Each structure stands twice: as structure tokens, then as C-alpha cells.
């Protein structure tokens, strides 16, 4: 089966003070359609760089990115992308923000609104369409931002620490909410996080990145059955996997400290 996204030997180098500095070492990933894939690693390991490359916002130094077998290096608009900050335009209402992607693609406003409203209703934003972003809580704003990404109609969605700025309670609600959406829409999701619990709870596959310059250290497939429940987070299996991942990550940190 052809992978949905294939990343072949992608790396990123910067030149600073006449020296070439690697931000991300050669990385290769193959992701099948409909999987929920998380990437965890210490900060500055190039996770966001990788996302920017997949989204076509920055060119890689080497390698290629294939989506459905087509090279999408330097091409924007092939994947939906959501950042940690909600990036809602403050002068637009929630509804107008959600239809932004469709508006850019030139879909008539009425059609866009007709598609957006039922989704807002179904996914917890009912009655907020005429509100401005600043009137909503952080969790609600993230919902709006994710719906905007979804309505952009791409099979692949990149989520860069979308819940990083939320409190623990809201985060839990949002994780379940995201799983619901992922089940309903069947998109391929690439998810960056710092939170090991979050990674295990949500993912099919977890890629562990080493510290800067980043490279893939381990791939772990989470076979815990779905639908998952909050209680699963305290099961012995979950704890065991968490231990393993913590070891992986702290090994990375030890290396980093030795290098300093």
C-alpha cells in the first residue's frame, strides 16, 4: 500500500557565522492513510522545522516530501496546518475565521457558511458564530482553529502542539474532542507534542526524536484498542509505555547535558 506521506532523507541546515549548523538530520518517515501519528522529542529538536517543510513553507536542504506519491516540496496548500497559537484573526467573528480557508479558495460565502454551521453545532461551538475570538476561552478558540483547518478539506492535518497552551482539564476535554473528530473524518494526523500522556493516549504511532540536531530515534506503535477512555491513562500498560518513553527522552537529555 502506498503511504499517504513519505518523507525521504529530509534534513535542514542553516549557515551562521560561516559554519553550517544542522537543525534536523536526515529523517525518513512513512505514514499510512488514516493514522494518528505523534512526534515527541526535546524542545528544539526540529519538530516544527519538519512541519514547516511538510507544509511547504520552508524548503528542506536535502530530501523530498511525497504526498500520495507526488512531490510537494515547497508547495503550500497540500496539508492543513494548525499551530499552538490559535491564530484567529481578531477582527473576524468565529464563523468568518472558520470559513477563511474556503474563502481563500474562492468558495462562495453562502456555501461556506452552510458547511461550517452544522460542524460548529456538532463540535461544541453552537451559538458562538457571531462572537469575536477574544470573547472565547482558550479551549474554544482551539476548537475554532481546528475546525478551520478541517474545513480546508485536506486529507493530511499537521497539528503543532495544539493544546500546549491549555490547562490540564481543558486539555483532557480537547483530546477526547480531537479523537472524536479524527474518528468522524478519518484524516491522517501528524501531531507534535511535549506531553507523553497525550502522545500515548491519542496515537497509533509515536516517533521519538533525539535532541538537536533532531533525528528519529525510535518508532513505537500503540496497540491499545480504540475507542480509548480517560481511565486507560492509568492502566498498567499505559504506565509501562510511559516509562519507556520517559527513558527514551531522558536518555536524550543526558546526552545533551554531556555535550554541554
Amino acid at each position, binding site marked *: 500500500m502506498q503511504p499517504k506521506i513519505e518523507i525521504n532523507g529530509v534534513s535542514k541546515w542553516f549557515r551562521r557565522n560561516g559554519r553550517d549548523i544542522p537543525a534536523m538530520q536526515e529523517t525518513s518517515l512513512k505514514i499510512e492513510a488514516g493514522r494518528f501519528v505523534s512526534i515527541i522529542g526535546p524542545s528544539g529538536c526540529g519538530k516544527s522545522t519538519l512541519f*514547516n517543510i511538510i*507544509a*511547504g*513553507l520552508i524548503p528542506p536542504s536535502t530530501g523530498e516530501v511525497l504526498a500520495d506519491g507526488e512531490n510537494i516540496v515547497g508547495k*503550500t*496548500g497540500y*496539508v*492543513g*496546518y494548525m*499551530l499552538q*497559537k490559535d*491564530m484567529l*484573526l*481578531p*477582527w*473576524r*467573528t468565529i464563523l468568518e475565521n472558520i470559513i*477563511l*480557508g474556503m*474563502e*481563500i*479558495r474562492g468558495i462562495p460565502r453562502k456555501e461556506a457558511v452552510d458547511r461550517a454551521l452544522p460542524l460548529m453545532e456538532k463540535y461544541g461551538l453552537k451559538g458562538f458564530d457571531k462572537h*469575536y475570538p477574544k470573547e472565547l476561552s482558550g479551549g474554544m478558540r482551539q476548537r475554532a482553529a481546528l475546525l*478551520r483547518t478541517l474545513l*480546508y478539506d485536506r486529507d493530511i492535518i499537521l497539528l503543532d502542539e495544539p493544546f500546549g497552551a491549555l490547562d490540564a482539564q481543558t486539555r483532557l476535554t480537547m483530546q477526547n474532542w480531537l479523537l472524536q473528530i479524527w474518528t468522524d473524518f478519518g484524516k491522517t494526523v501528524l501531531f507534535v507534542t511535549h506531553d507523553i500522556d497525550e502522545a500515548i493516549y491519542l496515537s497509533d504511532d509515536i516517533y521519538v526524536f533525539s535532541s538537536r540536531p533532531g533525528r528519529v530515534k525510535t518508532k513505537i506503535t500503540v496497540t491499545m484498542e480504540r475507542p480509548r477512555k480517560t481511565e486507560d491513562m492509568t492502566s498498567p500498560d499505559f504506565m509501562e509505555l510511559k516509562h519507556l518513553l520517559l527513558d527514551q527522552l531522558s536518555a536524550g537529555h543526558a546526552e545533551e547535558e554531556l555535550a554541554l
Partner: protein
Amino acid sequence: MEETVRKSTFVIHSLSTDAAVPVAEKKLKTASASNSAPLIYDEEAAERKKARRIGWGRLAVAVLLFIVWEVFTRIGWLDPYYWSSPSAIWQTTWLQLSEGGLLGDIAYTSGSTVLGFVFGTLCGAMLGLSFWWSRSYAGISEPYLIILNAMPKLALAPVLVILLGIGFFSKVALAFSMTIVVSALSAYSGVKSVDPDMEKLMYSLGAKRWQVFTKVVIPWSMPWIISSLRINIALALAGAIVGEFIASSQGVGRMIMYAGTILDINLVWVGVVVLSVLSMAMYWGVVLLEKGLSKGLGVK
């Protein structure tokens, strides 16, 4: 609180509910509450009171100022020849309004000011916004913009008057040159403050550059452009008046110049007062404009 569960690692307490409180105690509570009216701080009333106090205070200062001015000039502590007096200024103003050409002068001055202000602000804003399109273009232009800003543009007045004649348009041009640079620099600050992640998001949604420009850069920079309006209206008026000082056949500035030459100090004061009122009126106009623009953007 009662313990309901005790285990080796934790204890659970259940909180007592309302039903557990004895009835007599409950009654006592409600009785004591009704004895003294609760002290509720009425924020709105306090706010109104404060606003009234400020309003009256302002009026009192104005009245006091005029009384002191009038009295001092009458008893000779201030020489009425130089300082005139509120009553004399009022009489002269009335005379100029009813018999002289003061109304025409006001129209002339405000006309050139407003025209210069509108065109200067619009062109400046467009110039500032255009810097978003290319960093090299912005980098090349920036020092020249700063030089233009630092240069006393009023010093150019004689050249502009010679170039454009002593008519209306040399005044408009002066007001324009006073406002365009400020407006351009403000818009450029707005452009520079646009969150790069916001642009990133737009590109990731497949936006073209012009879509990012119209949907993000312009609305994002609007507060900066709007904040330059208040400064600009005062600058435009100063430009128009200096233009009239240099050479003009009409306008409040020309009237002041003329009054100064014939040593009619009362008339000079009339001009100063009229300009102050005019400048205040324009300022409030701009404040209203700001409110309208901000509302249109859904900000605040």
C-alpha cells in the same frame, strides 16, 4: 467533614450537605442577614459621579482663566495692548464674523487643511503598507523616509509657494507634505508588527500574497494608521497656516499676518482663538472618524 473511605495511601472526606445543618441555626443566619442591609458598591453610580466632577472641574478652570485674564487686563496688571482681553476679542470676532470675511477665511483654511490631511494620510498609508511586499524595497526606502521625517518640511514652504503659486493648492501641498511621512511611518510600523505565524497560517491555507495582504496585513495595520490621524490633523493645520503666512490672499493665517503688520493686536488674538477652536473641532472630527473606523473593523 467525615471520612468515608480510608485506604493505605489516601483518605476521602465527604463534605457535609445543607440538610445536615440544624433548622434553628439556619433561621439565625437568615435573621442576622436581614438586620443590616448589605453594602453593595454601585460601580456605575460612582463612575457617573466621577464623570460629573471632572466635567464641572474643567468648566471651572475655563471660567476662572477668562475671569483672571479679563480682570488683570482691566486693572492694568497685564498690558491690554499686548494681551488684549476676552471681551475685546469677543467684540472683534463678532465684528469680523458679521462684517469682515472671517467665515470665508475659516472655510479657506479648513478646506486646505482637510484636503491635505485626507490625501496625505491616504498616500502615506498606501506607501507604508506597500513596504510589506518586499523587504529589500522597504530596507532601501527606510533611511530616506526617516530623513524626510526629520527634515523640517515647513522650511520648504517658500519653494512650494513659488512652485504652486500663492493660491489654494500650495497650502494643500504643505498640509500634504506634513502628513504623508508620519502616516507612512505609522503604517510601516503596523506592517512590521504583523505576526509572521499569521502569515504562515494564511500560506498554509493556500493563500496568495495579495490575499495575505488584503485579509491580514491591511486590517492588522489599521490601528497604527488610525493612531496617526490625531497627530496628522494638527500637522496639516500647521502646514496650511504657514503656507498662508508666506503668501496668500485668504485664510485665517493670512488674517493674523495682516493684523500683525498693522499692529491690530486684537485681531491677532481673534485669529489665534479661531484657530484654536478650529483645531479642536477638527480633533473631535478625527476622534469620531477613529471610532467609526475601529467599529468597522470589529475592534474594541
